């Protein structure tokens, strides 16, 4: 818009070179002010959503830790004869939240770059799908959307876990890639391990658990997949909202700086115009 105004002025030769017209500046000022209003209200909305997400995350953390403990205590190792891996990317549909989605996608992309034959990807959220489908579209076996508008529920997680189990993809080991919420200003892209029934049953340390038969293990693994997914979705949602809050805060700050600069140039140009008009009047009068 500014460039166009400059070209127009040069054409008519009405103003000095490089000086935008008053109208152009005021239009730009108005649009930046509107953008600031939008980013500010988005920040408020995500602050409210973040508070809720954090409260819910606190309740979910024990579920996730409990499910995680089982794998840690049993010391399950990924089977060497089954190279197939499953990677679940936990993102959401919504953008404008810094690098939360890209860092999850980047983690998966580096893994796929090493070995794109034996890894299949489940994309949760449109963002990871959009990033990964361009190069590694053939590796995607499931994609989910409609997540991120509302806080994730256990129903969502169990739907996804059910779909993963029914996908007929035989994997030896798997991982859930998600953003672990650390504080309002930081999150860490982490992984949670997932194993198949065969690798759990083959684990030598499984005997520390009492009265296990295959069916109990199978039922527990199905349930623990759902609870791990639920936990990672909650962590992801909380990091996303906190990251969106900071991103929008920065955007409003930048818009504020721009508004200051534009107001300054606006006033300067206005005065320049007034001065020029005065000079024209005075020199006109003295020429009489």
């Amino acid at each position, binding site marked *: 818009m500014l460039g166009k105004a400059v070209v127009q002025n040069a054409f008519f030769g009405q103003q000095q070179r490089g000086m935008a017209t008053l109208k152009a500046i005021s239009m730009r000022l108005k649009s930046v002010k509107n953008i600031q209003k939008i980013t500010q209200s988005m920040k408020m909305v995500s602050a409210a959503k973040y508070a809720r997400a954090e409260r819910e995350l606190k309740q979910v953390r024990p579920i996730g830790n409990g499910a995680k403990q089982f794998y840690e205590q049993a010391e399950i190792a990924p089977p060497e004869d089954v190279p197939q891996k499953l990677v679940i990317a936990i993102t959401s549909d919504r953008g404008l939240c810094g690098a939360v989605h890209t860092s999850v996608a980047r983690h998966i992309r580096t893994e796929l770059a090493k070995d794109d034959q034996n890894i299949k990807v489940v994309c949760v959220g449109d963002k990871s799908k959009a990033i990964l489908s361009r190069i590694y579209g053939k590796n*995607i076996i499931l994609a*989910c959307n*409609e*997540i991120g508008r509302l806080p994730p*529920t256990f129903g969502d997680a*169990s739907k996804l876990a059910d*779909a993963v*189990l029914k996908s007929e993809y035989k994997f030896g080991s798997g991982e859930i890639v998600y953003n672990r919420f650390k504080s309002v200003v930081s999150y860490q892209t982490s992984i949670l391990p997932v194993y198949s029934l065969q690798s759990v049953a083959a684990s030598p340390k499984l005997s520390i658990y009492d009265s296990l038969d295959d069916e109990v293990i199978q*039922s527990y693994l199905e349930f623990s997949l*759902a609870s791990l997914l639920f936990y990672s979705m909650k962590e992801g949602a909380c990091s996303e909202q906190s990251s969106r809050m900071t991103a929008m805060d920065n955007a409003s700050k930048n818009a504020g700086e721009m508004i200051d600069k534009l107001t300054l140039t606006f006033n300067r140009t206005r005065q320049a115009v007034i001065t020029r008009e005065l000079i024209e009047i005075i020199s006109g009068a003295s020429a009489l």
Partner: protein
Amino acid sequence: MSAWRQAGLNYINYSKISAKLLRQALKSDLKADALKREASHLKVTKWEDGKPIKTSEY
């Protein structure tokens, strides 16, 4: 083998149905809150060869 697994359900479906029944059995003042937790909006699509397939329904 338990009856629900023979019927083709896995533990996720089984516990989902039990949770649903339990929620329905609650008293009405607690029920409203509990029913909200049941909602699920996630949509799952199957992909093959880099393209989504329409037919799958979960």
